[in-house]
């Protein structure tokens, strides 16, 4: 990333740490995550369930609730640290300059409010629009995201829309104030495949139009391939590899990334044997030593089990946290 220093990143996260105090000890859900995103780019955060992807973005907006706590790091958005600014400052930014789309469209809309009210809420709150003006704007937004006859439907409740439609409504609400940073937490996971493609196209199109930054969480490498500029792979609360999308698929250097890509290739091509990554995800609990992936890794050495690897530059914008950094050709683990 240092080579691109002439462009000022919109968001610059350094050493973000979020812990959850649970009965069995401290869970390091996010353990020293750093990344930055430049204007007009799409960053995909990839990892399996429990790798800390969602907690990372929730931490940025300070949406972590007890027993979780952001314990360290900075998240500089346009020169201000999101993690230390006043609540009021943060409330002004949320929904206006940064907004978020959630995974399950069936539960992320309030069943007691009309869709028009929900889409226009941000405009009233952050833009000081009157009801009427905001509702008119909501109709425009709904049309933009492809809701048929939006003028008639703006007074309907979420219950009368399908999952795909509701996700479009969520997108309309999230984009109402033209945010500079849009965070999407697995926006297509709960939708069927044809709907997924439509929603991704819509997100891409709108992102290009507003020229904002999109940070998308996903565990679907197909989604990554179709939308990402940059990819960040997380495992057990840490970033294990980060690179431009082409490089991640062409030359992954972390055994975990290689494993993920190998499984997807095997699914695409029936002649390849499927090599699942053995074992289950590591739980980042208590004091940790060595590489979290070592127990599941075919390349693990004694050094891996004792010393925690740190991110190293292996290409112009490619970093990886691995002692071994196996060659991408030896894809199986």
């Amino acid at each position, binding site marked *: 990333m240092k080579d691109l220093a002439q462009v000022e990143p919109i968001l610059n996260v350094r050493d973000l740490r979020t812990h959850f105090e649970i009965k069995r000890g401290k869970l390091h859900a996010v353990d020293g995550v750093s990344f930055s995103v430049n204007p007009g780019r799409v960053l995909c955060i990839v990892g399996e369930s429990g790798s800390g992807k969602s907690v990372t973005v929730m931490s940025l907006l300070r949406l972590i609730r007890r027993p979780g706590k952001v314990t360290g790091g900075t998240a500089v958005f346009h020169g201000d640290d999101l993690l230390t600014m006043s609540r009021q400052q943060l409330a002004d930014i949320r929904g206006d300059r940064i907004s978020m789309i*959630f995974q399950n469209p069936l*539960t*992320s809309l309030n069943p007691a*409010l009309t869709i028009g009210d929900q889409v226009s809420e941000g405009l009233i709150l952050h833009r000081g629009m009157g009801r*009427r003006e905001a509702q008119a704007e909501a109709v425009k937004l709904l049309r933009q995201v492809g809701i048929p006859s939006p003028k008639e439907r703006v007074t309907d409740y979420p219950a009368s829309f399908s999952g795909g439609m509701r996700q479009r409504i969520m997108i309309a609400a999230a984009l109402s104030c033209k945010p500079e940073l849009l965070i999407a937490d697995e926006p297509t996971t709960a939708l069927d495949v044809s709907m997924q493609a439509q929603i991704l196209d819509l997100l891409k199109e709108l992102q290009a139009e507003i020229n904002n930054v999109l940070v998308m969480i996903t565990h679907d490498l197909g989604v990554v391939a179709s939308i990402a500029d940059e990819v960040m792979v997380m495992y057990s609360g840490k970033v294990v590899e980060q690179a431009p999308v082409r490089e991640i698929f062409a030359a992954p250097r972390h055994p975990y990334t290689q494993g993920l890509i190998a499984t997807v290739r095997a699914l695409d091509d029936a002649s390849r044997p499927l090599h699942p990554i053995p074992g289950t995800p590591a739980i980042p609990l208590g004091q940790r030593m060595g590489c979290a992936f070592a127990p599941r890794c075919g390349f693990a050495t004694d050094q891996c089990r004792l010393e925690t690897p740190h991110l190293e530059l292996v290409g112009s914008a490619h970093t990886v946290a691995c002692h071994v950094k196996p060659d991408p050709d030896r894809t199986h683990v």
Partner: protein
Amino acid sequence: MTAATNPAPLRPKSALSETMARLLGDKPLVRLLICLAVLVLVAVLAPVISPHDPLKAVADLSNMPIGSDGLLLGSDNQARDLLARTIYGTRISLVVAIVPTVAATTLSVAIGLLAGYAGGRVDAALMAVLDVFFAFPIVLLAIAVAGVMGPGLLTIMVSIFVVLLPYITRVARTSTMQVTQRTYVEAARSAGAPAGAILVRYVLPNMIGPVLVYATTLIGLMIVVASGLSFLGLGVQPPTADWGAMVAEGSGVLRGSPHVTFVPGAMIVLTALLFNLIGDRLRDLFDPRKGS
């Protein structure tokens, strides 16, 4: 949604009116509500429909049987018209059960919203205070309140209010906690909505259903409780007509003239049953597992 024929104005319907439409479309519920309306009408129109003054002896004899000359339900032990007393008793029974339940529900929803949404220390403190109220048995509490204020309608209502508060608050708090975890509340927070707006627009309308159902069922129970307290002499004083007090007065002649006790007793049971059935029906209608 007949969008084509009906170009929608900006606010044609609210969540409330939509819920009302759904409830009124349910035939069994409508039937129950009609029964309740009749009961309320009887209470309101008591002076008009009552054949006699409930406080005056109008019969020739006391404890006359049902269907006696001119007295549909006979007379009580002081030769008063049993029908007139039963009609007037409706007023007290409904007021004494409904008013404190509604008041307790209102306060409970406020406390429950606060405790459930804030969580942590606020929640712990509020719940600890309410746990103290949990310890009061209603009869003992009513006796204590009567000791301060003297027996009467207000004593019963205050007792019921205090006893119900912790129960309804628990339900309101749990319901709030469930709703608070839904993604749309998270989404509202991520969109920078202030806490007040989130509580009123996002949490309240979605948590209130189970609370209302519970409170409705409690009204039925409270009719029985209020009658019990009146039976013990903690409620309205003679000669005012009250179902619980009437049962107490009739108990002396239970063997010879059971109807003096059974008529008000039956009214207590039927009214309590009515509220329970309404509560059950509402629960069924609001049950998300049954779909809509």
